[in-house]
């Protein structure tokens, strides 16, 4: 019986043994692997988002302003939206934070990439870096549009464990 996809030789045992049980057990095994994958994911989440990490410290973000990269100075009023041709920076009041902790400040773009950073270090060490600008990605003329998140984070064992302050601004497409 050449070219036949259904094998006669294997047909007879199938009547005696219900192969649905094999399929059932197989999908149960796959589900067990799936549960393990999800547990690993949960462990990863808890590792990077550890519970009970509220230190009580709060950073103060003074505002988000237009930024001139040639002078390194900010201007204008605190804004929540920018055109993509505009450059902007957050201003942080590091003095609002207690000593003895390690902190940094970062800008994340809409893709989750870090596009500006100051730190890590003790708040006193960062006092000279109040302005944290968004850096235009290499090879691009302007910032990419979308939602940008600015966070001041507390660092522990090299990992950010707590957000001490947060601002979200929108970069318009036009």
């Amino acid at each position, binding site marked *: 019986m050449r070219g036949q*996809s*259904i094998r006669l030789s294997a047909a007879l045992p199938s009547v005696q043994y219900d192969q649905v049980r094999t399929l059932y057990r197989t999908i*149960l095994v796959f*589900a067990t692997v*799936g549960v393990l994958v999800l547990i690993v994911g949960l462990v990863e*989440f808890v590792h*990077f988002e550890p519970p009970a990490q509220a230190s009580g410290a709060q950073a103060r973000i003074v505002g988000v302003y237009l930024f001139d990269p040639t002078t390194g100075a900010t201007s204008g009023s605190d804004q929540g939206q920018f055109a993509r041709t505009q450059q902007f920076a957050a201003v942080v009041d590091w003095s609002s934070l207690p000593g003895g902790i390690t902190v940094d400040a970062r800008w994340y773009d809409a893709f989750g990439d870090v596009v500006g950073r100051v730190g890590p270090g003790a708040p006193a060490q960062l006092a000279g870096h109040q302005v944290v600008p968004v850096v235009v990605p290499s090879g691009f003329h302007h910032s990419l549009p979308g939602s940008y998140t600015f966070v001041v984070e507390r660092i522990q064992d090299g990992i950010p464990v707590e957000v001490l302050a947060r601002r979200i601004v929108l970069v318009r497409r036009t």
Partner: protein
Amino acid sequence: MINVTTPPAANPHPRLRPSRYGIAIAVAAVVVVALIASSFLNYVYLDTIPGRASLYGLLAVALIALGTYILVRAFSRDRAMRRKHLIRASVLIGLGVLLWLLLIDVFVFTQSAGPGVAAICVLVCLPTTGFGLLVVRRMDRNEKEPWRLVLVAAAWGAIVATSLVIWGETIWEATAQTSLVPGPGLDASTAFMAGVLEELAKGSAVVLLFLVMRDDFDDVVDGIVYGAAVGLGFNFMESITYMTNLYAIFQPEGIGGYAAGFQWYARQVLGLFFGHATYTAFIGAGIGIARQLPSVRQKGFAIASGFIVAIAAHFSWDAWLTFFPIQSNVFGLVEIHLRTLIMTGPFTAAIIALLIFGVRFEGQNLLDQLRKEAADGLGAILPDEVRVLASPWQRLKQRLRALNQGGPRAYLALARLQSAQLDLAMERWHRERKEIDTPLDAEVQLRVRVIDLRSPTAR
């Protein structure tokens, strides 16, 4: 001569409404409520779509109103007419809902890049998705699923499932963005969100097919086909969304076409089967296995298992994608392919293994039933036909021979006959396994149909 004392069977259609229809109505009601909430939230928070809703909404509202009217009247008819009216009402209401959702999708997802770019994105995604559906449907070598159901599954994935997840994902993302530490923890949260919400939305389509179209949902193979079709539909709409969105983001830098083209390749070529099709195929596999299990407890475990694997596969891709960074050089092109192969390949291999096993299992049992039917001597399947009917290649060869001898009409007539004979064998298989929820004499009807198709007047 046909033996009328043959034990009754459920196929093709039960006269009484089985209890699973009640579950189907409940699931559909939940979906409709979720869709209304989704539309409301889309309107308020995502996009007001000014003026357009009243324009395109009229037709959708009219279709739903007419469908509802026929639905209400259907219940005052006799049983024979009621069925016709219920079908008409379902079609009209379904069309209305699909039109409404499709247009919302088009405006919400594509207006950023403009209708021209959106139309091009749709056009380039259609052939690849069509190819995917063709391949997925052909995977069922013994008894192919009807195109109408495969397309309904894909349409659900593209339109209903994407609409169902918009509000849930928006709320989850907004909450996570304002409460979690950016980085891998946030990525894991987003991946859990996508895995759970998107697989539940896609899986509800497969569950509804399982509950309502039981006659065309036979086993694990059918489940994989329907699940993959839903996944391909979802992937179609998601591809268009990403292509138009990234075009709009990168076009001011002069690389919008490149960004959209990369998305097309990643999602419609590389990820066509290594993605949503694989994930949702697991849901279908679980439901398909449940279809043939005897106890409710086992059915529940099988369906839950399918959902768990689908969610895990989806989660692993979204959460750990960042652990496989791609270099921006020529080697990066190799890395993109390797990444997909390493991360999704094992899941795709697992579903292919289930499919191969299912096809073999189905084939063996169909052969067994074909032999038994031929041995009964009722005339629907002759002993000489068993060998041909048991092999897809032999069936094709026989149809091609008919095409040469009698033209396309002979080809189609033989195709209908072969299909009816396989339906009969499938029916016998389900009856023998006691996978029938309502006793009926449909097996006799199927046998009569085969004999009618065999008569010269049917050719």
